[in-house]
């Protein structure tokens, strides 16, 4: 792996041969509205199409148009590309393209760069009419050099102005051209990408962007000594590349569901955007409800009327939907609920990553509300879990939840093109006559399962209710009936849990430390654990997909390790900080659950900094945990 970049004598250059590297992390940072994400997503897409492993993470400020040239306003994207499968955003960047001198500080604060990181910096600020801006640029330049970054000042604005009147519109495609040269991307793929993203625009706009793309490419070729080649992955399979929200949206199509009832909320909404664009051509519709509560009420109405529906939201939306979630369980109505988690509590960090909704999804409702909760760990799983969720919702007559997060939602990753199966799609609504000798809640003694009559089925008439009810769905006035019905509603999930497999342990199944994770941290945990294992540390990991009910055999797995620890992106008290003792320390969310489930002293590392965890961070946690125990 080429960790740092050799920058040879600049700027005069000879035709250089591309240096072969295994992988690189590239960042583009800018003010909002400069198209950095579009540029980066395109670069990722071109790279994926050239057969590279790819992972992207968007850097999104909280506002649509924050003040220009501000640290907190940094908007952009990180793209990690490699000749192998890439599963996370990695550690520090190798190459950064900065459209001004202030936005990199937003990333420096997050330790995103290191000594040797190459920074391609827009130089127009050096000659800005505003003296303050010129001074800031000079200071930043000096500071970047002191930090050990290899800064190359680049006349992006001037070069773009040779082609367009307003460089702000289009500079991103010039940058894409520059990146395409640096990483030896095929220009035909770049051209095709530009034609695709501007497909709804006029030919003039497309041609202007193509012109910028080639200009950026040629400028880099003539002026930069940065030229790399990243070999493609060896893949026999057809691949697709998309982000997690797109995968959720396509998963909805693949599940055969016909209604997505939603209310706009970051970072979940783009899944519904995709559906809004394509659903009508595949027999479905998006309903934008008046609020989160109405969104789930509408979805429940659709499900009740025969076809399981989906509602897609984030943590604050789940909070508002809580009462309906309880009702759907009580009335045993199939439903798919997608929670694209973000930072909380309250409005929290709407554009940032957190795994903070596990406990609220599990226990947010009053009373006993057992349920199935799936946690997607990869973008591929975002797709497949929707199909699974729809099937489970109908088989077990229950809401099924899918937890993803902001990291998966906007991250792009290639995965094998799904091989479509007919049984993914839901069946037409059953309208055959109902056997009137069967109650609407004819709970099976052994499994707790029952079959539901659907409106239109003659003889199945009944009134579902959120009140305690008997098998006939009649309001219950007998104390023992609520006990009994609660038990059946619980038993079906115990029956379901019996069908699950023990989760695999990655690494040896005995050792000093077992890391337990869930959701989007999979790739970073995997990379960190592999590094630690390579250095001889006796560490393994387990990654959970079923958060409720848990996969079986956890206690048996845990008992083979001296220590067990979860790695999560949510809040926990740090052991040694003031006031915390074993009697008051608050654990991270999965950790609480595992302690209760297994009676094993499961520790945790977690934070709420709103960033995906890097492999380095996790590696350091592993080393520290093992050292602490030695003392």
């Amino acid at each position, binding site marked *: 792996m080429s960790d740092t970049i050799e920058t040879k004598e600049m700027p005069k250059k000879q035709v250089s041969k591309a240096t072969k590297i295994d992988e690189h992390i590239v960042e583009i940072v800018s003010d909002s509205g400069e198209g950095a994400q579009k540029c980066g997503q395109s670069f990722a897409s071109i790279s994926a199409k050239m057969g590279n492993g790819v992972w992207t993470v968007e850097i999104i400020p909280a506002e649509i148009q924050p003040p220009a040239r501000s640290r907190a306003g940094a908007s952009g994207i990180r793209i990690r590309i490699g000749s192998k499968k890439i599963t996370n955003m990695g550690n520090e960047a190798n190459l950064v393209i900065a459209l001004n001198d202030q936005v990199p500080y937003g990333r420096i604060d997050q330790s995103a760069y290191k000594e040797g990181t190459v920074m391609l910096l827009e130089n127009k600020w050096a000659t800005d009419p505003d003296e303050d801006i010129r001074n800031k640029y000079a200071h930043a330049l000096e500071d970047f050099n002191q930090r050990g970054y290899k800064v190359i000042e680049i006349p992006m604005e001037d070069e773009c102005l040779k082609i367009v009147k307003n460089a702000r519109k289009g500079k991103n495609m010039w940058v894409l051209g520059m990146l395409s040269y640096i990483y030896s991307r095929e220009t035909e793929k770049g051209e095709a990408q530009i034609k695709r993203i501007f497909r709804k625009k006029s030919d003039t706009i497309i041609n202007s962007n193509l012109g910028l793309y080639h200009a950026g490419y040629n400028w880099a070729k003539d002026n930069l000594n940065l030229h790399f080649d990243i070999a493609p992955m060896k893949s026999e399979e057809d691949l697709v590349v998309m982000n997690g929200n797109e995968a959720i949206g396509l998963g909805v199509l693949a599940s055969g569901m016909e*209604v997505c009832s939603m209310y706009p909320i970051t970072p979940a909404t783009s899944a519904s955007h995709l559906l809004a664009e394509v659903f009508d051509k595949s027999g479905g519709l998006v309903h934008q409800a008046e609020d989160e*509560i109405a969104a789930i009420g509408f979805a429940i109405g659709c499900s009740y009327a025969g076809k399981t529906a989906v509602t897609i939201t984030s943590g604050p939306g789940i909070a508002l939907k809580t009462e309906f979630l309880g009702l759907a369980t009580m009335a045993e109505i199939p439903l798919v609920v997608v929670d694209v988690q973000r930072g909380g509590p309250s409005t929290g960090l709407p554009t940032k990553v957190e795994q903070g909704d596990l406990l609220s999804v599990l226990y947010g409702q009053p009373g006993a509300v057992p349920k199935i909760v799936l946690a997607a760990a990869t973008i591929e799983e975002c797709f497949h879990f929707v199909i699974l969720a729809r099937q489970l919702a109908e088989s077990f007559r229950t809401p099924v939840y899918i937890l993803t997060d902001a990291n998966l939602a906007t991250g792009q990753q290639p995965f094998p093109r799904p091989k*479509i199966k007919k049984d993914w*799609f839901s069946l037409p609504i059953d309208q055959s006559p109902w056997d009137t000798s069967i109650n609407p809640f004819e709970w099976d003694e052994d499994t707790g399962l029952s079959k539901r009559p659907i409106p239109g089925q003659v003889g199945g008439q009944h*009134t579902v209710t959120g009140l305690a009810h008997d098998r006939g769905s009649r309001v219950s006035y007998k104390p023992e009936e609520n006990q009994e019905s609660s038990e059946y509603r619980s038993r079906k999930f115990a029956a379901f849990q019996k069908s699950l497999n023990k989760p695999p342990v990655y690494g040896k199944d005995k050792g000093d430390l077992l890391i337990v994770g869930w959701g989007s941290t999979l790739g970073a945990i995997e990379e960190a654990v592999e590094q630690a294992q390579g250095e001889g540390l006796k560490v393994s990991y387990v990654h959970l997909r079923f958060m409720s009910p848990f996969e079986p055999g956890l206690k048996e797995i845990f008992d083979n390790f001296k220590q067990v620890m979860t790695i999560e992106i949510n809040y926990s008290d740090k052991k040694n900080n003031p006031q915390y003792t074993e009697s008051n320390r608050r654990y991270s969310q999965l950790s609480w659950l595992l302690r209760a489930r297994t009676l094993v002293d499961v520790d945790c590392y977690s934070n709420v900094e709103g960033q995906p965890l890097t492999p380095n961070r996790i590696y350091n946690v592993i080393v520290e945990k093992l050292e602490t125990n030695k003392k």
Partner: protein
Amino acid sequence: MYGLKSELELDLASKHYSLEDYEKGVARWCPGCGDHGVLTNMHKLLREKQLDPAKTVFVSGIGCSSRFPHYMDTYGFHGLHGRAFPVACGVKFRRPDLDVFVVTGDGDCCSIGAGAWIHAVRYNMNMTVVLLNNEIYGLTKKQTSPTSRLGTISNTNPEGSILPPLNPVQTTLGVANASFVAQTADWNPAHMYETLKAAYEHKGFSFVHIIQRCPIFQAALGDELTSNKDAMVYLEHENGITVNEDIAKTFKNKANHDPTNLSEAMHLATEDHHIHMGLYYQNKNAPCYDDHGASNLGFTVEQKEEALNIELDKYAI
């Protein structure tokens, strides 16, 4: 029994529904409660329209009136406080073949469910909505409702309520895309029946405001309303709701009102001293959201598979 005769005359091969086909259980409302009369009329309406009980869905929220679906031998959904409308709209969205009814109360609709109510009016989906307004919270035992008259003594306002009441007819008329707004009262079953019938026949969100007595918590108000014959005004019009001459004669006051005239409807709704009985407003051409909902039904698995393939192609490497 009522209706038996007509059944005997029918061709035995085709199912004819009698009142018993719509009745279920014994209603557990208090004796004298206005809900009983609405239930009886609803059974009659379904029989008159020969609705298939299996294709009829009653949706309600929470409150005395929201127990209604439990007494109908149709499909029913007794959901959450204030949330009958989103559920009913979801039921109707992809099932144009179902007849949907919503039964709600003044707390359910005008207080906790006010947001959903406003938007349901605007969606204008084809369903019949009855708001049973007794101006008090009954099931939770006498708290002030948003429709309680100024000065109403209740457990939450022991010195009398402080705010002027919300007027459900006025509010509904004020919402964009309102298409059917009528008012009737529980103590005039004949007028109520005709009103429910007209509401059912209207394509769109038919909102029927039923002034209703609560003999337990609003007994005095009920006495006042039923005894003051001067207050009731029968709205007459060829396009309005008409009752037979004998019933019409019982009204001392009558007014001619064209139900296409929204501003006049609003004027009548806000006129304090009278209770207007009949159709305030109807717009037969208001767009219905359920037409959109039913616009792409019935895709086969093969069609869905093909559509998915086309979408996946866009992401192919």
